[in-house]
């Protein structure tokens, strides 16, 4: 009897261990952020306070932009509807605290991926949705056509809490030019002060310069200098510690870019289900089990392409057609001379 009891105990223990393991992995698949998002019924997304082409709200409060589309893609994937997103406009200063404190679940706000941000402050960058670099804007009438013409005493308007402040120092220091940094909390105030003549130059990411230029009183009076003084890979960010949610956001972005590569658009996505190419079929949920690993159904990627479109469509709609940066430059696919290259969905 005692002999059996011992074996019974070990059996129970064994089952208990097995059970623990299974519940553990189930829980891992159903990430906390994913569970909360599905319970709430919307994705909580942090965006800028208004940067045309990236994240900008119209008079009716509808958000558009390539950064906005990343959040919409995640909403389409996990909730089935690209419109189920709650946007929170954040200043550069507030953005990381909002994410780490759990006020938002994705930060998609033209944020530069750097080592210290990725490693130090409890964040994880999931990819790059726009390759950018810092530049300078000056008044055309100043006659400046290159950063080589900058002289001691120049005043430069910019935003606080950005990599811009650091790059600016590196740039002016390495050239031995003394300068006056005038740093505002909000982008609108930077533009207003520069436009009023407070500063000789306005510096931020070149995409930002191109976008803000459209907001000026007379956009034609300003030019963006050709030089780029830094690398600014911009991309969506999530909190550290929820690897499933991180993967969902990463692969939502990757799906948009890869869909463009294979010519899948919002218009033809459904018909692609019968394609001969297995890679295309995987991207529209017609082959393989591509959603199970995230705890999602199999058509999560199809919904992204149908509701939001591929990366090229998003770029054209938000950045090219609005006249901000008609030329895609480095943000073209690797197959067409750009540097957009994502790992395969398989």
């Amino acid at each position, binding site marked *: 009897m005692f002999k059996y009891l011992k074996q019974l105990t070990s059996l129970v223990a064994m089952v208990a261990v097995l059970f623990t393991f299974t519940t553990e992995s189930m829980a891992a698949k159903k990430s906390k952020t994913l569970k909360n998002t599905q319970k709430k019924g919307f994705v909580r997304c942090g965006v800028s306070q208004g940067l045309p082409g990236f994240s900008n709200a119209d008079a009716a409060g509808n958000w558009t932009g390539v950064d906005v589309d990343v959040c919409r893609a995640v909403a389409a994937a996990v909730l089935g509807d690209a419109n189920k997103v709650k946007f929170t406009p954040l200043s*550069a*200063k507030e953005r*990381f*605290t909002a994410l*780490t404190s*759990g006020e938002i679940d994705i930060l998609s706000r033209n944020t530069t991926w750097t080592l*210290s*941000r990725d490693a*130090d*402050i*409890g964040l994880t960058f999931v990819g790059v949705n726009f390759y950018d670099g810092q530049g300078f804007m*000056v*008044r055309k*009438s*100043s*006659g*400046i056509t290159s950063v080589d*013409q*900058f*002289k001691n*005493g*120049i*005043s430069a*308007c910019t935003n*606080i*809490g*950005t990599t811009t*402040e*650091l790059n*600016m*120092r590196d740039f002016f*220091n390495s050239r031995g030019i003394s*300068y*006056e*940094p*005038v*740093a*505002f*909390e*909000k982008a609108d*105030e930077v533009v*207003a*002060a520069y436009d*009023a*003549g*407070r500063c*000789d130059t306005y510096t931020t990411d070149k995409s930002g310069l191109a976008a803000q230029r459209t907001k000026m009183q007379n956009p034609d009076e300003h030019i963006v200098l050709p030089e780029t003084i830094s690398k600014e890979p911009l991309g969506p960010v999530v*909190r*550290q*510690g929820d690897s499933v949610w991180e993967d969902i956001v990463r692969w939502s972005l990757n799906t948009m870019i890869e869909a463009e590569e294979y010519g899948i658009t919002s218009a033809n996505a459904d018909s692609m289900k019968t394609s001969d190419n297995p890679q295309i079929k995987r991207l529209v949920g017609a082959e393989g089990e591509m959603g199970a690993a995230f705890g999602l159904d199999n058509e999560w990627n199809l919904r992204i392409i149908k509701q939001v479109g591929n990366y090229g469509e998003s770029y054209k709609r938000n950045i090219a057609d609005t006249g901000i940066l008609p030329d895609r430059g480095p943000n073209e696919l690797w197959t067409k001379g750009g540097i957009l290259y994502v790992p395969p969905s398989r």
Partner: protein
Amino acid sequence: MNFKLKDIGPQLMTVIAVVLVFGFFTYNAQVNMENRGIDFGYGFLSQESSFDVQFSLIEYDGSHSYFRAYLVGLLNTILVSVIGIILATILGVIVGIARLSPNYLINKFAAFYVEFFRNIPLLLQIFFWYFAALRALPLPQDAEAIFGISFLTIKGLFVPAFIWQNFNIFFYSIVAAIIAIIVIRIHSKKKQETQGKQTPVLLISIGLIFILPLLSFLIGGVRLSFEVPVLKQLATTSFIYEGGVSLPPELIALALSLSLYTATFIAECVRAGIQGVGKGQKEAAASIGLTPNQVLKLVVMPQALRIIIPPTTNQYLNLTKNSSLAAAIAYPDLVLVFAGTALMQTGKAIEIVSITMFTYLSLSISISLFMNWYNNKIAIQEK
């Protein structure tokens, strides 16, 4: 025994509740920071800040530490608060007295000023003075010289810098003058108490404060020259003044809006204080033959000050705390430099926000302590 428990019970419960609430917040922050792999610590203060600040009272650039950046922000906050408090006090006292003026125009104008400025939110006033007034200022190349040596432009106010030779002798001469004045004051007070004779202290004081420094110029070898700002061309249409001292427009706009706003409240304190002195006091003073000036100086003001000081202390505290709105217009105060840029670059939100809160608390308590000391000094001395 029972009686004792009843006494300390509620207090004990309050203490336990407070400790529990704080304990919960600390624990919650710790767990969440651990989950996200965020380290807690103040080690970052000694790291290189690698960002520059527009305006600083001490030597600073990006190669200095975050702690130095903190000091830069703190000093800028103190600077704008001190300028604001001085201007607000002067303006507030003038407007407060003007509100009691029998002259209809002065009286109504002061009343209009108070009602207008205290009823518009401060942030809007800051934006107004910065953006509206800024746009109205000329570009450096179009600026008219003020007295031929200063220039008020959209890029700031450029004034001549003082170049001193043997500055320490000049400094000691002023210190000597101040000490002499204090000695004479004490002496004349004694003389008046014992012999009833009045000495013209004010005239002697003014004489001393001018003559001693003047002597330092004549025989002490002190030389003063001015470095006048000179226009320099940066590009076809962009100019800047070089040399001299430049005050950024952000500082001017902030100090102006803070003092215009706070002066309205101080004016009301002053008016209330003067009106709080009984009418009989003034009449009694007049009846014993004091001149109107002496009535104000010897009878009304000493009593009015006791009413004015406590609420005015509040206004000084408000002004200091309101200076944190500087972030909106790029004045590099503590909030912009430390709780803004430094917080962003390090990601040490809890540490930096707690240091900033502690700093404002210390500033406010220092002002309170000073004003309480002053209030006690002028309070009625029971003999």
